[in-house]
């Protein structure tokens, strides 16, 4: 409890006393790993043999022609094992968990991507694993719940509060204050008490380090603008951290505009004016809260961006102007995803599609010699139910009805046997 991880006024470690020694241990393990070049090498080796690093950058030629402005490049975090950037953070924390000699990991999850990544890491490293997930998210992300359970994780649906990501985080902390001796809490984004924001951003910086090198070696220059979606802020911090010293590169973070402005309609903490500075979930940042300091409900078509707080590092970059924040609405996001599928055969997750939507708004107004880079933080396999609903695909509906009839018939005969 000495260095408390402040980024100007944001960050800190507002933790229950019982966890103070646990955070001291985590901080020590993190700082030791960071100072040890062999650790980073071990991490890079792991990610290049178990996941798909370095992930490529794809030139989106058809989208570029279609929009008629800046050249569009896409960083392919969807090609990570488990289909999202979440694997970067999780594998890094898995290595730390081993170093600390712990045998169980817990995590919160929104979209389920971080839960699946954590369950995968636990299976690989031989850890026990419990995943906390808001009941609302369990209902909308069944495919991910299925895989977590297949990998041996226990998935606990959280019914408290708004039954989404923030409530899953609270519940994970409640587990941790009981089981800290053998358990590591692998927080999934660049939020929470110090050292999580900084540590998660460090693991994710592998995205930005690669992207900068790839742009230089393949295009001979840096992009003019880079776009990333912002839930808690980990994929954005990962990509941005490669370009923080490049004044000519504009960094754009895209939040969930949901149904548009107005408290409760969105999850845009920085792009809209509804959020104020507060302290919850162990850290100080902009929260969507009422004047009493009670957290408000948020809305987004994407579970992974549907969160009341935001990385304290990004909150600081918002205030200093180092990153520009925008919001994309649910409708814009689904349209951007469909366009990307049709033009490029790429399937960005609904979360990632926020970055695409904003880039598509801006690209036509930029010169043909300008370059933009979009982070495709994940792929949308998990979103198939949500997307099929949003575009109201009749054949998908038919398929589900047929499938349901089969299950019902089977349940009836099994019931008869018993």
């Amino acid at each position, binding site marked *: *409890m*000495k260095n*408390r991880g402040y980024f100007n006024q944001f960050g*800190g*470690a*507002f*933790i*229950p*006393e*019982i*966890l*103070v*020694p*646990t955070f001291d241990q985590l901080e020590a393990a993190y700082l030791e790993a960071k100072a040890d070049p062999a650790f980073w090498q071990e991490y890079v080796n792991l990610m290049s043999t178990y996941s798909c690093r370095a992930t490529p950058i794809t030139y989106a030629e058809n989208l570029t022609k279609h929009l008629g402005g800046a050249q569009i490049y896409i960083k392919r975090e969807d090609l990570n094992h488990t289909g999202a950037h979440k694997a970067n953070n999780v594998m890094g924390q898995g290595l730390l968990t081993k170093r600390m000699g712990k045998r169980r990991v817990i995590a919160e999850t929104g979209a389920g991507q971080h839960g699946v990544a954590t369950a995968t890491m636990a299976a690989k490293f031989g850890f026990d694993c419990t995943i906390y997930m808001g009941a609302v998210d369990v209902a909308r992300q069944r495919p991910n719940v299925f895989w977590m359970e297949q990998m041996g994780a226990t998935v606990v649906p959280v019914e*408290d*509060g708004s039954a989404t990501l*923030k409530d899953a985080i*609270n519940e994970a*902390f*409640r587990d941790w*204050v*009981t*089981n*800290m001796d053998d358990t590591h809490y692998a927080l999934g984004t660049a939020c929470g008490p110090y050292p999580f924001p900084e540590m998660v951003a460090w693991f994710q910086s592998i995205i930005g380090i690669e992207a900068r090198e790839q742009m230089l070696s393949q295009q001979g220059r840096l992009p003019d603008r880079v776009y990333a979606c912002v839930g808690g802020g980990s994929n954005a911090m990962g990509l941005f951290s490669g370009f923080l010293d490049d004044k000519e590169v504009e960094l754009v973070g895209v939040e969930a505009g949901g149904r548009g402005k107005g408290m409760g309609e969105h999850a845009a903490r920085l792009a809209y004016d509804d959020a*104020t500075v*507060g*302290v*919850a*979930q*162990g850290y*100080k940042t902009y929260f969507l*809260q009422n*004047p*009493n*300091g*009670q*957290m408000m409900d948020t809305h987004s078509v994407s579970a992974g961006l549907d969160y009341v707080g935001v990385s304290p590092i990004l909150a600081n970059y918002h205030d200093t102007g180092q990153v520009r924040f925008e919001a994309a609405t649910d409708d814009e996001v689904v349209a951007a995803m469909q366009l990307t599928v049709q033009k490029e055969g790429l399937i960005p997750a609904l979360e990632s599609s926020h970055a695409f939507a904003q880039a598509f708004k801006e690209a036509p107004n930029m010169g043909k010699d300008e370059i933009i880079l979009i982070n495709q933080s994940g792929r949308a396999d998990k979103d198939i139910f949500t997307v099929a609903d949003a575009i109201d695909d009749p054949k998908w509906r038919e398929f589900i009805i047929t499938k349901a009839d089969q299950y019902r018939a089977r349940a009836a005969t099994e019931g008869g046997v018993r």
Partner: protein
Amino acid sequence: MLEQYIQDRLQHKELLLMTHIVLGYPSYDKSMYLVESMVEAGVDLMELQIPFSEPMADGPVILKANAEALKAGATLEKSLEMAEKITANFDIPFLFMTYYNILFKHGVSDFVSKMHDIGIKGAIIPDLPPEEASEYLQSMQQHKLDPVHIFTPNSSLERKQELNEHTSGFMYTVARKGVTGKDTQFGDELGEYLVECRQATDLPLALGFGVKSKADFDFIRGKADVAIIGSEAIRVMEDKGVEAVGPFIHSIIN
């Protein structure tokens, strides 16, 4: 101040009792009734919890009480009004228990000065370690209110001494790891832990987390100075109604 009050009372009985309620749960009227029946049953101090939407350190019972209070329309303003009425009507000391965002959003020094004005004697803020608390600690000192901190079975001697420097009134010692409201083993290990706590502070020790019966209360006698009952009183109220809480407290003390 609280320390003197506790020492005075300890002249007459060996173990004091502190109870806890969530303001506005199930309603502000019922909160008033609960305080009245607890005070009449012989409680020595009380924690009044101001509801928060993210009570990270609380277990299922108090978590639900917070959520229900907010759903029923609890606000900071109403909680402060209710607290003022409570301190005016009853002659024991009351503390606030809440999470830091409630103070932070209101303005920390103004919040503390309001506490003083309405007759609250101290506060327990479980997500505010002293490292983050300079404004709070200064204001508390300025208004002669007691900031209470928490000893845990994980706290080293060094950490306990650090906490002791920032604490007045009494030291809240939690009986075990975990959140409020789960079972605690009241046995030898707990006795040894309390001996360690004594070595780190001269303040009275209050023991909480999982205290729920006369047997627990009797076990604590001679080891700590104050026993704390939180979730169990809420459970009794939920199972048997508000009228059952006074007799429950009475049965523990006597």
